């Protein structure tokens, strides 16, 4: 779960990392008031995408009137597909220099990774490798102050910046651990009047750990439909094609959309109905697919723990209930296959046993329906 900038900054501030004075505004009036109180500000769109500055998501206002006007322009605009509903008004900083720092999990070494650079202010992917300092953390030891000092030294920082940076590394790692962060990033980490200030912040929380972070505000991401499917506990991603798919297991679902493209079709979604889903969730998942009004639906099941007869019952429940008004292709193999196929055949639905044949047929039927 991603946190908005203003939320991430609140967490930084709680952990003693300096941020500029700022507040959330959601109307020209509140922007007017913010500039009156704070002086010249940066108005920053609160959206969950990077590169927002270049896209026009950060603008400045020197007077309250200008603040109201700029806020009026920005609120309601779309940034990379996201509607801007809130702005963060932050006192404008006289930035002398921009650094970068983040803590994330390195999948290969299976260790926390602290990255820093003296070339901050741009996306870290655009910084050449030799300008990035990478220090790995032994999670069973953690980050002690010396770890921060070594990084500060590697960056060539001196005197008060050296001390402030060393201290900040320790605090940032604390946030990473305590908040179950996937990523905590300060970019730019600004030098203002010789001191460090977090000018922008990202904080992404591990979804699997949300149960122990009731203190964090919930941020929903994705389309309404994606949110609805996630609520029934299934993994779902919207794509831009017209063949809806459902499979059991994440790998199978990925392979299924790959197969659709292989035969020249376009998948409408990714849907993992679960490795051992029973009748009800499977039926619910199928209802979602029907509601998308695709040109065809492909159900691809390899029954291991999932039982083919359960899947067949789910399909029939939807067919005889709400109805399935689009071509349906079913591939059903594995545990209780005979029973499942017989159930479907009785209601006039053919079942494929080979994944390739089923995918090809779904693509064919979708083309006919176009």
């Amino acid at each position, binding site marked *: 779960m991603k946190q908005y900038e203003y939320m991430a900054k609140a967490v930084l501030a709680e952990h003693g990392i300096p941020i500029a004075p700022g507040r959330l505004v959601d109307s020209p009036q509140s922007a007017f008031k913010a500039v009156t109180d704070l002086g010249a500000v940066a108005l920053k769109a609160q959206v969950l995408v990077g590169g927002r500055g270049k896209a026009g998501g950060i603008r400045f206002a020197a007077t309250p009137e200008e603040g109201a006007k700029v806020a009026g322009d920005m609120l309601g605009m779309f940034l990379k597909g996201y509607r801007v509903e809130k702005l963060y008004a932050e006192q404008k900083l006289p930035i002398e220099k921009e650094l970068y720092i983040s803590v994330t999990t390195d999948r290969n070494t299976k260790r926390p990774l602290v990255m820093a650079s003296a070339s901050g202010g741009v996306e870290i992917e655009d910084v050449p490798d030799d300008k990035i300092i990478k220090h790995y953390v032994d999670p069973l030891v953690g980050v002690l102050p010396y770890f921060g000092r070594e990084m500060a030294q590697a960056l060539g920082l001196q005197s008060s910046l050296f001390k402030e940076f060393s201290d900040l590394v320790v605090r940032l790692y604390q946030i990473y651990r305590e908040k*179950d962060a996937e990523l905590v990033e300060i970019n730019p980490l600004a030098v203002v009047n010789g001191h460090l200030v977090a000018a922008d912040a990202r904080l992404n929380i591990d979804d699997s750990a949300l149960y122990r972070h009731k203190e964090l505000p919930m941020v929903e991401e994705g389309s309404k439909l994606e949110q609805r499917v996630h609520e029934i506990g299934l993994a779902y991603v919207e794509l831009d094609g017209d063949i809806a798919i459902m499979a059991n297991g994440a790998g199978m679902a990925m392979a299924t959309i790959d197969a659709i493209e292989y035969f020249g079709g376009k998948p409408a979604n990714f849907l993992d109905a679960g490795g051992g889903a029973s009748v009800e969730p499977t039926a619910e998942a199928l209802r979602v697919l029907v509601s998308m009004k695709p040109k065809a639906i492909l159900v691809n099941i390899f029954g291991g723990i999932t039982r083919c007869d359960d899947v067949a019952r789910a399909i029939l429940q939807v067919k005889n209930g709400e109805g399935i008004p689009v071509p349906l292709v079913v591939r059903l193999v594995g545990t209780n296959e005979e029973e499942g196929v017989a159930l479907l055949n009785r209601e006039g639905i053919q079942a494929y046993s080979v994944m390739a044949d089923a995918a090809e047929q779904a693509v064919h039927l979708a083309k006919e329906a176009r």
Partner: protein
Amino acid sequence: MAILLTQQDRVIVQGITGNQGRFHTRQMLSYGTPVVGGVSPTKGGTYVEGVPVFDTVREAIEMTHATASIVFVPAPFAKDAAFEAMENGIRLVVMIPEHIPVQDSIDIVNRAKMLNVTVIGPNTFGIISPQERTKMGIMPNHIYKPGPVGVVARSGTLSYEIAFSLTQSDLGQTTVIGMGGDPVVGQTFITVLEQFRQDPQTRCVVMVGEIGGSAEEEAAEYLSTLGKPVVAYLAGRAAPPGKRMGHAGAIIERGKGTLDSKEKALKVHGAEVVTMPWQISRAVQEALSRLS
């Protein structure tokens, strides 16, 4: 032969009295796994499927000389369970649960490394050695048969699909192992390939990868050391960047973890990369016939 798990292992089930633990204890026993005990705090003294249940792993080891443990406890308790197993001398831990916090997994796998414990998972279907008639996992029993192919996969049902198609083509397996779908897991393709290298009966290896991370790229450089033919299939060709495709680890982040990069790396180092899962069996057949 097989890798990592043999008939010499003595297996306990942590969380044996839950629905999943109970069901899969029955399945594992019926396949031939030497399940010698279970652990479920406060349920000590009872039996599940004829297997004695203990309150602690320590007691279970004292009474049964267990060497391996499969963990079925709910995700919030999984770290505790894994440490209980490792600190008491279990040498192979299979972590079935999905949605274990990554910070917990980091602690588990780093401690495992120190103690020289093999952790499989989390978020895995487990490991099965058809040659040894033994498994620790949740995979269906009937889709495997003994033979010369080693399979290492990141995902469950997709590996079932592939193992079954191998079996139907009369291509049996030495061991099929699931690394797990999480970003941080105990095994890498390299650690598993190294096991397959040392197993004389494994003549060909099938890698089932997917988008996200760079485990496949890292493994590619190991292939020349492996010295055995590798057939790879990678899932997620059609996946958009920035979206998690079911597995917590299956995501293209900031341009990293794309299928293209994995495919190129594997091909450069001599793996046969097929486009679709149903092309695997034929590729394995051809690789094996070139060997003989």
